[in-house]
Each structure stands twice: as structure tokens, then as C-alpha cells.
């Protein structure tokens, strides 16, 4: 049994445990590559039946337009129920990362949006595609990770998780975040996408795209909401994205890689880690842990 076979079997086992024991599970679908792998594994886990839970996207109104197209097409092609939630208060106040900054935008549109959506639909278990190799506090998190009724994570008080035996009993108001890809690495994800021919958003592949430079980062001109200085013209560059999120907050990298092996090659030869393109991790040393305690996925 190869390591990918073992990781696949483990993820399928985790998903079936949740479906057998949860009252109302949901899969958080971010449209990124990890979500694509997770969705593919869910199809495998419940074959020949359909995926027995909905997938949910927390939209921020600032995602790349290609992500939204890909999301809607995927849901249609696979015949899964797709729930899209946008924080109505954020929408009302015209949340704009160019004006309000990344931190506030993330708090309102992602963290609060997620909490609202989980409360609204009364989901007791939510699958997430996070991996332990992404970040230090993730490395400490259990596969079944409990949240209080206020969606808070208490890293100092995690349940022992023995063998592959998961205690999914929860108290009134508590919910569980479950991470079937905990033990996968970035390379495992790419390799699996390659082997299984899993569709992913085309933004991961290099192409000539219009970009502008902001604080040393290349930002895609995805629509006309991006403020251009007088006389500024977007540059056409061959770029791709290593992670996907809100387009104003996600830097492009210059690259010629337009096939999966080339992407993997580029990833293996690169000298910076995956999350560096995301502004959220730079805020302070323990920023992800803090965000997670507050309910960020």
C-alpha cells in the first residue's frame, strides 16, 4: 500500500464516521485545490450513492470570478447541493478590502460569515480541507476538533484522539470541525490531483493575465472594482496562483507552468512556503491560532 492509498483510505474512513454519527453535517467548500480533493474523496466514500451532505461556500463577494464559475459548474456536474452564504451585514456596509484592509475584510466576510452560516443551518459537523503541514497551530489540531457554542477553539483542552477512534459526542450547542486531509502535505495533494485527474480552478495554471503591482505583490485585475492610479494600465504577464482566495488579497506568481507536472516541479523547487501569498499569516506570530480561537476555519 503506497502512502497515497493509505491517506485516501484514512480520509474516506473519517468521512463515513461523520456521516454515521452526525445529525446534520456539511462540507466547507472553498473552491481551492484542497477542497477539490476533499470533494473527490467524498464521492469515493459514498459511491455508488451520492454525497449525503451539502457543500457550503462562504462567499465574500471578492473571490476570483473564475472560482465562482468553477464552483457552480462543479456543483452542477456532480449533482451536489451547494449552499452559498454571504454575510448580509458585510454586504450592506459595502465591505471592500481595498478600503477596509485585509484584516477587517477577513473578520467580517469569512469568520463572521462562516459562524452565521453554521448557526443559520444548524450544522453540527463541518468538514474542512485544512492540513497539518500548513501552519504551526494546525499541526497541533485534532482531526475531530471541537468548537464551543460561540465557535471558539480551545487549543489547551483538546480531547485525546486514540488510534482511528473518534469520539464525536458533543454537548448542547457545541459543533465539530473535521479535517479529513490532516495528514496530507501540499505535495500529496498535487500528486493526488495529478494521479486522479481531479479538475481544479484554471487559475492554478499559468496564463497571460492582466495584473498590477501593489506593495511588491502582483494583483490580478479581475474586475473594475480595483482602484487604478491615474494613467495606470494593467500589465499582461504570464502568472498563476499558488493559493486562491479574495483576489485583492492574493498575490500572483510569475510562472510558465501550465501543466500539473510543471506546477509540482515549480512547487518543489520553490523557496517560499505556500501560505506566504496570504496576508493573514503575517499580522503577528500567533495570528492563525488567534483567528482559529475566534472561529476562523
Amino acid at each position: 500500500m503506497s502512502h497515497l492509498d493509505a491517506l485516501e483510505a484514512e480520509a474516506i474512513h473519517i468521512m463515513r464516521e461523520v456521516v454515521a454519527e452526525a445529525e446534520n453535517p456539511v462540507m466547507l467548500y472553498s473552491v481551492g485545490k484542497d477542497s477539490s480533493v476533499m470533494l473527490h474523496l467524498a464521492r469515493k466514500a459514498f459511491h455508488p450513492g451520492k454525497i449525503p451532505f451539502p457543500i457550503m461556500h462562504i462567499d465574500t463577494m471578492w473571490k476570483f470570478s473564475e472560482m465562482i464559475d468553477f464552483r457552480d459548474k462543479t456543483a452542477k456536474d456532480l449533482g451536489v447541493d451547494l449552499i452559498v452564504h454571504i454575510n448580509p451585514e458585510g454586504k450592506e456596509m459595502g465591505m471592500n478590502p481595498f478600503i477596509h484592509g485585509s484584516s477587517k475584510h477577513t473578520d467580517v466576510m469569512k469568520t463572521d460569515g462562516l459562524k452565521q452560516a453554521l448557526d443559520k443551518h444548524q450544522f453540527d459537523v463541518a468538514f474542512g480541507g485544512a492540513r497539518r503541514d500548513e501552519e504551526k497551530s494546525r499541526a497541533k489540531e485534532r482531526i475531530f476538533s471541537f468548537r464551543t457554542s460561540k465557535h471558539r477553539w480551545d487549543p489547551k483542552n483538546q480531547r485525546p484522539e486514540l488510534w482511528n477512534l473518534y469520539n464525536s459526542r458533543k454537548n448542547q450547542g457545541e459543533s465539530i470541525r473535521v479535517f479529513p486531509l490532516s495528514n496530507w502535505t501540499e505535495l500529496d495533494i498535487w500528486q493526488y490531483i495529478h494521479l486522479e485527474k481531479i479538475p481544479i480552478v484554471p487559475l492554478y495554471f499559468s496564463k497571460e493575465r492582466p495584473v498590477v503591482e501593489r506593495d511588491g505583490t502582483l494583483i490580478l485585475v479581475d474586475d473594475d472594482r480595483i482602484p487604478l492610479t491615474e494613467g495606470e494600465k494593467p500589465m499582461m504577464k504570464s502568472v498563476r496562483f499558488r493559493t486562491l482566495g479574495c483576489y485583492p488579497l492574493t498575490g500572483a506568481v510569475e510562472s510558465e507552468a501550465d501543466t500539473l507536472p510543471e506546477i509540482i516541479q515549480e512547487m518543489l523547487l520553490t523557496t517560499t512556503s505556500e501560505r506566504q501569498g496570504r496576508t493573514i499569516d503575517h499580522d503577528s506570530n500567533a495570528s492563525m491560532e488567534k483567528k482559529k480561537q475566534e472561529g476562523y476555519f
Partner: protein
Amino acid sequence: MAHVSELISTDIDSYLKSHEEKSLLRFITCGSVDDGKSTLIGRMLYESKMLFDDQLSALKHDSKKIGTQGNEIDFALLVDGLAAEREQGITIDVAYRFFSTDKRKYIVADTPGHEEYTRNMATGASTADVAIILIDAEQGVLTQTRRHSFIVSMVGVKKVLLAVNKLDLVNYSQEVYNQIVSDYSDFAENALDLESITAVPISALLGDNVVEKSEKTPWYKGETIMQYLENIEVKNQRKQTPFRMPVQWVNRPNSGFRGFTGLIASGETKVGDKIRLHPGGNESTIESIITWDGKLPKASAGQSVTITLNDEIDVSRGDIIATSTDPCGEADQFQSRILWMSDDAMIPGRQYILKSNTQSATLTLGRLKHRIDVNTLDHLPAKTLELNEIGVCNISLDKRIAFDSYENNQTMGGFIVIDRLSNNTVGMGLIDFALRRSENIHWQKMDVSKESRAEQKSQIPKLIWFTGLSGSGKSSIANILEKKLQSLGKHTITLDGDNIRHGLNRDLGFTSADRVENIRRVGEVAKLMVNSGLICITSFISPFESERKMVRSLVLENEFIEVFVDTPLSVCEERDVKGLYAKARSGQIPNFTGISSPYEPPKNPEIRIDTTKASAEEAANQIIDFITE
């Protein structure tokens, strides 16, 4: 560069092909505080070039700011991920790290050394193939070294690498190294059940014998740590054991298909094999083995599959599909080893929930046979287990489950203990063997029933259970209630706390464990009274919710009436009819409910009496109204 292989830049397709063939090895690092576990892992990640430039520069920055190595890189900061850990410079929870070589992918569980976090260490050990046990060359074999080794061996890790660390601090002395290896071997031979112990002299901080062979230990001829990990054979024991698959979930996409999903725990099966279904023992044969990638002729341990059977037999979650040539045992009483993982001590007699693979049952922990002192390995008498203590005890379940001993099959013999109120995982358990005693005692069938006895008295049997603080007024109300019921021609009996403690329960004190046993016995006696058709009134403080729940489960739902005599502590203390509160306050009575021992008020009692508003007479009438309704 992140991953080292020439192939990456020259021939990515060949590289990917070779990466597909890699095997997976899980290992754990353990040992006492400051033995350098995190440093070792940081060093391995660094030397296998698994660190990115931005991570390395962040690490250098952090090392200067909060590191413990002066201007050198403090590798421990790489793995101690929680804010509290970085501040205190200790590891609190198990962290999982990943790296790969050309041959293997590794998952490392980095576990805490502090004694108070031993349960997190056991979490890491339960999935490990190999354990690296670190010893500080300056310190030698410590209590925590023995404790971790014992737990590693207990959960079934068979191969141990003994890394004698910080050798640079003892001038790379062969003598010191030999002494430590010999001390450890003496301990291990007596105490542990291991296949192999391999010792390596290292300095995690400086990298000696971690990846590259060190020039400073010319006397050492063996492998480096990485060489050991690359070469060690971990034969898949699970494949050689008989076929077992706990059913997780029944897949019924349409009326024509019924597939049983699960992760194969052990052994191998193929289409046409005869199987036995546990519990019960129905037999059938494998019709097909289905996966998304197609039907399989056979499948083995570690695979997640969906199985269909040739016969229409009832199968649901919690059932075990096993080979019929070597099926599981079934029993409801076992001897087991328990590692306690909760701050609240284990209480023999209390009911918990057992979860083993996909099976769940109500669990009662019996009296402890002994506790194991992992420092001396002595068997000590014990009434209870505190956090991180290990003991041997008999357990009994409310139903039969399928099992194998933990030694033979980890999935079928391992279980967790779950607290019914907090829902937390409070213990780890390993089944040693089934007890035969329950099988030979059958229920005697009686012709005269509870119903006929009650009918003779023209009444409906009840258990009226008073609970409340000492001095709340339970006994006074119970007394009036019984007089009134008798005058109505009812046949009653009252069990009173103080009175029972003079007789049946005179051997019990007031510790939590004894309080639980007190209520268990009273519950059983009350049940006999109810079965004889009586209206049984009991008056006990009964402070714990889980015991009241247990008693409730002994009789029928409509027979149990919980009466919460809700008198505030300040009022009870002011009345202090028996003078007990004064004594408790002055420290003369230990474990006094409300003062030095907790009272858990009922959440949904049938009747709640506020004695600051109602007299005992009114309260008794309230209860009579309730039962005659």
C-alpha cells in the same frame, strides 16, 4: 531548495513516479522534558531540506527573540506551535510533522514531555509504528523515560530507537553512552514487551548522527537516526491476523443496493469468502467488494471498501464482519488495562460509555485489581485512578460486543472511555481477555411478576427519589409523605441515608468513589422494592447527576420520580439541624457536600420543592398530587 532530488529539475515525471511508490512510516518522539525532542525533529526537517527560506528566516528571527540557544537557531521553535508553548518553552500538545525522503513519507508525532500531558503523549503513540525515545546524556534514564517507554510498549509499539542525546555535553563519551544503554536495557527487559531496541549516540542540536555520521563518535559503528528510519522493516502485522471489518455505515442509494462500508481492520478477504456477522453469528458469503475505482477481487487491512453479501441478513453500524474460519469472541465482561486521561478521577461503579471501533455500549468499571507504578513497575492496591495513572480492572457492559484481545488486534481490542455528562474522552482501555463468569449465570425466570404483586395491593409501584443538600429537609418531607400514603392504604417503604449507612453500607465512607457505591447499592435495593410492588421512598443527598441517572435507568421510565429539595446552601447551613455544617466549616468533616465536595443539582427533576416557600406538609401534598394524577 525544499526537496532534494536531482530528478526534480531534470525529469519531473520520473520523480513523480518514484514518489507514488513511497511507503508511509509513522513514528513518535518521546522522553522527558528538555531531552531535546522538538530540537531533534527541527534538525531532521532542516537537514532533509524541508524548511523553506521564509520559514528559516522567521525561525532565525524568533530564535534571537525568544530562543534558548543564544544566537544559534532554536529548532524547538519550529514545532512548538501554540502561543502558550512558545512563551513557556515547553510542548503541551502532540504536533504532527511531515517530511519525505526518496524512499518514505514520514509522519512524526512530537509529544510533550511533562508528566501532566502524558495523555497527549499516548495519543501520539497509539498510531506510531516506531518510537524514538530520547535520553539526555547528562541526566540518564529518568522517571519520565520509563513512563513513556511503558506507555509506548503498552499501546503495542514493538520497535524502539533509543537516542542518547546531548552527547556534546559529555565530550562524546562512549562510557557515558554505554552506561545509559545498559541501564535502559535492564529496565526494558523486565518491563517492556518490545521486539527490538536500537541505540544511537546523537547531538540533536549539532546534528551528530542524525542524518550524517558524526566524526566525533568514531567508536560508534551503527546507523544514524535517518538510516535507521529508512531501513527499518515494519511488517504489516494487521495483514497476518484474521479478517475483521467493523461496519461504519450502510450505503443504500436505492432499494436494490445494500453495501456495508468500512475500513478493513485486519486480514484479507476475497469474493466468495465465508463470513460471520457479530454480534449474533449469522453467516453469509462475500458477494462483491466495491470501490469508486471499480470492483475488487480481494481487499486487505488498511483499505476503505464497501462490501455486499449474498444473503439478506440484517447488518448495521457497530456490527463486525469477520472471517467464519476464525471469528471474533463475544462477551460483556472483560479484564482490561486502563490509562486514565481525565482530571476527575476514575470512579469504580459509575457508568461510562465504551467505544470500540464502531461499537458502543454502557460501561461499568469494576473495582481495580491494582494500579501499576510505572517508575517501579510495582502493583499497588488502589481504589481509583487519577490522571495519567494506569491500572488493571474488570469492566462490564450492558450488552455483548465482538472483540479480540488488544495484543492480537488493536482495532478490535482497544477502546475509549467516555464520560456520560461531559462527553469527554476520559480513558484509554485495552482488552486483555473476556471473563467467563457472566456466561454461566442466567436470569432466572419468575412466574409471579411485578405487575401481579402490585395488582394485589391495588397500586402502581413507584420509586420516589429525594435529592438535596444535607439539612435541606428531605427526610422530614419523606416522613410526612409516607404517613399520608399509608393512610391512603398504600404499601410503602422508606430507605433513609443515615439508616442505611448503619447497616448495608456501614463499610463505606464519603469519598467520591464510596458515594457512588453507596448510591449504586441503594439503587439496586430500591429496584427490588419496586419489583415487589411497593412505593419506595429514598432520602439520600445523592450529589452526582450520573448516579441519579444510573438509578433512573434501573426502573421503568414512569416509575421514577426525582424530587429535588431545593434549599439554598445558606439556608441549610443556618438551620444546621445536626450541627454538621459547623463541623465541616471548621474542617472536622472532610468531603462534606456543599462545603468541600460538590453537589450537582438536577436539571430536569419531576418535582422541585422550594422549602423557603413551601412547608413540609405542602411539599408532601404536592408529591401526592403528582403521583395520583
